[in-house]
């Protein structure tokens, strides 16, 4: 599979105090470590093990992920926005890679 590519959907605008829905998706194999290859050798685990979302540096949502989560994990959550700013999303891979995405929102 190609390099994991994060995708995020955040509304471009919102009114102050509005609860917005944030959708995130990253393309990733989420290899569980339980499978074996053609020669019977175990395929090493390689999953996204942590996801975080911050808004202007403040934590919004975070979670640990486990091997049973399917490929291309999709997460959807809500946040109440009080001011304009930037959402920063990070996905942490087992191999130490960190994939990030930023999305700005204008709050009126």
């Amino acid at each position, binding site marked *: 599979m*190609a390099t994991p*590519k994060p*995708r995020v*959907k955040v509304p471009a605008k919102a009114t102050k105090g509005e609860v917005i829905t944030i*959708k995130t*998706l990253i*393309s990733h194999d989420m290899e569980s470590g339980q499978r074996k290859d053609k020669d019977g050798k175990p395929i090493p685990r390689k999953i996204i093990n942590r996801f975080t979302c911050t808004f202007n540096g403040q934590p919004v949502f975070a979670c640990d992920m486990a091997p049973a989560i*399917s*490929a*291309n994990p*999709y997460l*959807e959550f809500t946040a109440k926005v009080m001011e304009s700013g930037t959402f920063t999303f990070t996905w942490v891979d087992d191999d130490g890679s960190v994939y990030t995405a930023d999305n700005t929102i204008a709050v009126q």
Partner: protein
Amino acid sequence: MRLRTIVPMAVGILAVGLAGAGLRADPVEDKLVIDGEVELVTRAKAPEGHPFDEVVSGWHYRTDETRALQQDSFANPAMLYVERGAEIWKTVQGAAGKSCASCHGDAAESMKGVGAHYPKWNAAAGKPVNLELQVDACRKNNMQAEPYKFDHADQKALVTYIKHQSLGAPVAVDLTQGAMQSWWDKGKDLYYTRTGQLNLSCASCHEQNNGKYIRADHLSQGNVNGFPTYRLKDADVVSLHGRLRGCVRDTRATTPKAFSDDLIALEVYVTWRGTGLAVETPAVRH
């Protein structure tokens, strides 16, 4: 004296509860709108000679959650394949140094509506070709690249991408070209032929019993307007020939080869049965 025990052999009689009064549910009344913008035709008047009055997309037979997944192109997992297909479209492969885009340019224009008319008569091949075979022919003749191995991830991605350009276009197979009619006839024969240890034909489930439940599965009319389609049980995109082979295997018959004459004929006929439905590629099913 040795005690001899006679072990009664349990003879398993396979009773397939299809003919009986199974649990029935009508397809869900709902409208398929992608991203709140594009409304797709999921019910259409059946073409002449069709056993039903109305053809209905398999989308109506799925749960609320599965239907919702298809309506949101961000949540639809198969859109990852569409993205990947878009990259392959532009990637140069083969000795001729060409990509799909070298000849066909922007797929959004050149491939718009194209996928809705496949399988299509091909005079050079002397038989109908589907999108996969057309791509392979292009690769061989124009790109001088190797044809794809059946169900290679790149083949599924590219075909999904090409067919996705026809999203919303009504399925219309042209049976007047070449010998299409005879392939349709052959496909129809196969559709009604019972095969396998379970002695089932396509029609056993998708015509005579559509709307009923086969275990937990709500039997649809078996229309193929959403292929290649994302199946939740596979967590993957499934090609039409992959699905047809799966169905035949489930009847416990010898599985025909992908792109064999039998499966191409079946594809011609089954695609025709969904005439008028919008192309939904990539659909989401369970």
